[in-house]
C-alpha cells in the first residue's frame, strides 16, 4: 500500500475541536497513529517504558502545538515528524556509551566498512529474521533509522519521507541506501554470531 490517506474532513473537525481544548477529540484524532508512534519509539529507545514516555510526550506536544499545524499538509506527516524528533531528543538525553548506537547525524559520514563484500542472508525464516531485523534497526544509527523506519514500516514514498523529516529527497535516498546496507551488514553479523553460538 503506497502512501496514506489524505486529511479528511472528519479529521479537520477533530483538529478544530482539539485546538479549542477538547481532549476526547484529540484522542480520536491520534487513535490510528499512536500504535505506529509507539513502535517508532521502540526502535529508538528499545525499552518499552522509555518508548511509552517518549510516545506520550510526542502526543502531548502535538496537542500543545496543534494550533500551529498547517492544515494544508497531512496530519500524520506533521505528527510523525514530532514523534521522530522527540525520539531523537530522548535518545540524546539517554545516551549511553554503546558501541552500536551512534548519534552521528552527519550524512556524509562514510561507513568504516564501505566495501561491497557481503554475505547473503543465510536465514530464510522470516520470523527469525523479523526479530533480528527489529534488533538490527534498534542498533542502526539514528541517522538512518528515521528513513528506514518510515520507508519500511509504513511504506511512505521518498517524497513523503522528505516532508516528514524535512530533508531533501536526495538525503532520503542516501539514508535508505546506507541504512539498508548497514542492516544487511548487521544481520549478517548477527547470523554469524548466532551461528557461532550454536
Amino acid at each position, binding site marked *: 500500500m503506497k502512501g496514506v490517506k489524505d486529511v479528511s474532513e472528519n479529521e479537520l473537525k477533530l483538529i478544530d475541536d482539539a485546538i479549542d481544548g477538547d481532549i476526547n477529540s484529540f484522542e480520536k484524532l491520534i487513535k490510528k497513529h499512536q500504535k505506529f508512534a509507539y513502535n517508532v519509539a521502540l526502535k529508538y529507545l528499545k525499552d518499552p517504558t522509555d518508548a511509552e514516555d517518549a510516545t506520550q510526550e510526542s502526543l502531548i506536544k502535538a496537542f500543545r502545538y496543534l494550533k500551529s499545524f498547517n492544515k494544508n499538509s497531512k496530519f500524520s506527516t506533521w505528527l510523525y515528524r514530532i514523534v521522530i524528533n522527540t525520539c531523537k531528543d530522548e535518545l540524546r538525553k539517554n545516551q549511553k556509551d554503546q558501541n552500536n548506537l551512534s548519534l552521528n547525524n552527519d550524512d556524509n559520514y562514510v561507513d568504516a566498512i564501505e566495501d*561491497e563484500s557481503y554475505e547473503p542472508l543465510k536465514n530464510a525464516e522470516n520470523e527469525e529474521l523479523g526479530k533480528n531485523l527489529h534488533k538490527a534497526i534498534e542498533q542502526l544509527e539514528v541517522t538512518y533509522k528515521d528513513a528506514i523506519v518510515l520507508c519500511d514500516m509504513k511504506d511512505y514514498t521518498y517524497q513523503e519521507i522528505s516532508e516528514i523529516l524535512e530533508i531533501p529527497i536526495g538525503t532520503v535516498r542516501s539514508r535508505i541506501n546506507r541504512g539498508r546496507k548497514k542492516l544487511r551488514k548487521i544481520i549478517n553479523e548477527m547470523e554469524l554470531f548466532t551461528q557461532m553460538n550454536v
Partner: protein
Amino acid sequence: MNCEEIKKYISDLVDHELDHETEKSILKHIENCPECKSIYEEEKLIKETIYSETLEDLPTGFNLRLHEKLENEKNNRNSKEKKSSSKVIQLFKNNKKYLSIAAIFVLSIVLVNNLPLGLNGSTSSDMAREESVESKEISMNESFGNAEPTLRSFDAEMADQAIAVEETTEEAPAESEMVASDIDDDPLNEYQTGRVIIKNGNISLDILDLDETIRSVSDKVNAYNGYISNQHSSISYVDSSGKEYRNGHIQVKISSEHFEEFMNFAKELGRLRSSNANSNDITNEYRDTVSRIENLEITQERLRDLLKKSETVEETLQIERELTRIRGELEHLKGTVKNWDRLSQYSTINISLNEVDAIEIKIQSIDKNIFQKSLEGLMNTINSIRSFLERVFISLVAYSPLIILLGLVLLVIRKILKRSEKK
C-alpha cells in the same frame, strides 16, 4: 550501466521509486547479475519483513495515562493563559458581547459627565449676554442731567408757543429751529438742520489689554464731553496656563456731531471684528408727537376753561375725567419726546472688546492670495487636530480608572462563566 551505479538504485527499485523505463532496465541487469540480484533480494526481504511485521501493541493503560497527561497539559495551558497577555486578546475575542455593553456603559458615563459642563458653559455665557443686554436697557432708561435742561426749556417753549403752534403746525421745521435757537448750550445738529436723527453705532474689537483700552476710550469720551453710560467686563475664559482672557463692553454717549469722529477713533483701538452705524431719522414721528402734544395741551386749556364754567357736578366730573385722560396721554407723549431728545443729542456707541493674545492692527485689509489663504487653512486644520488629540489624550487619562475597573469586572465575569461551564 555498471554494477556500481546499479547498486545505487537498488533501494529505489525496492521502494518503487523509479520510473517505468529505468525500472525495466535495472531489473534486466539484475536478472543477469548475481551480485546485484542478491542485494536486491535481501533488501526486498528486509523491507517486506519489516513491513509485514506486526506492530507491538501499546502497553496496557497507555491510553489512561495519556489521558491524564493531556488533562494536565490542558490545565497548565489554562493557568498560563491567565497570566499571559494573549489572555487579554482572547478576552476581547470571546467577550465581544460584554465588551460592547461595557463600551456603551463607559460612553454613557462620559456623556453624562460632559453634558452638564457643556450646559454650564453655554448658560454662563448666556447669562453674561443677558446682563449686558439688561445694562443696555438700564442705560437707555437713565435720566441724564445734560439732557434735562433741553427738555424743560422745550416744555416751556411749547407752552408759550401753544397758540402759535396751532397756527403754524405745518411749519414744523421752523418750530424746531425756534427751539434750537433757544438752546445754544448744546449744539444739536439735528435741530439746526431741522431733522431729528438718532445715531448709534456698534463696534466689536479684539484688543490686547482690556483695561488699557477702556482707559483710552474714557479719555477720548471726556475730551468730547461725552460720558460712559455703561461699562461691564468679565473673564471669558482661562487657558491651560492660567492666563485670563477677559471681554468687556462699553456704552459711550457722545454728542451726535462727534459721532463719526469717535467711531473712527474706536475702530483704531484694536483689530476690528465688526462695526455698524445707523442713523434713525425720526423727524416725522417727532413732529407728529410734538403736534399731538400741542393739540392735547390746547384741549387741556379748553377743558380747564370749561371746568370753570361748569355748573353741574356731573359736568364737572365729566370734564375732570377727560382732563385726567388727557394729562395721562400728555405725560406719555412728553416722555417719548424727552427720550428722543436724549437719543438724538447723544449718540450711542456700543463697543465690545475681546482680549486676545496677539493681533495685527490692520489699517488696511490685506489682500490675501489663494496660497496664503490655503496655508492659513492648513494651519487651522493642524491646530484643530492637535487640540482634538490633546482632548482625547486627556480624557483617556482621566477615564483610565474606569477602564481598569471595567476590565477587572469583565475578568470576574469570565471566571464565573468558566466555572459554570465546567459544572
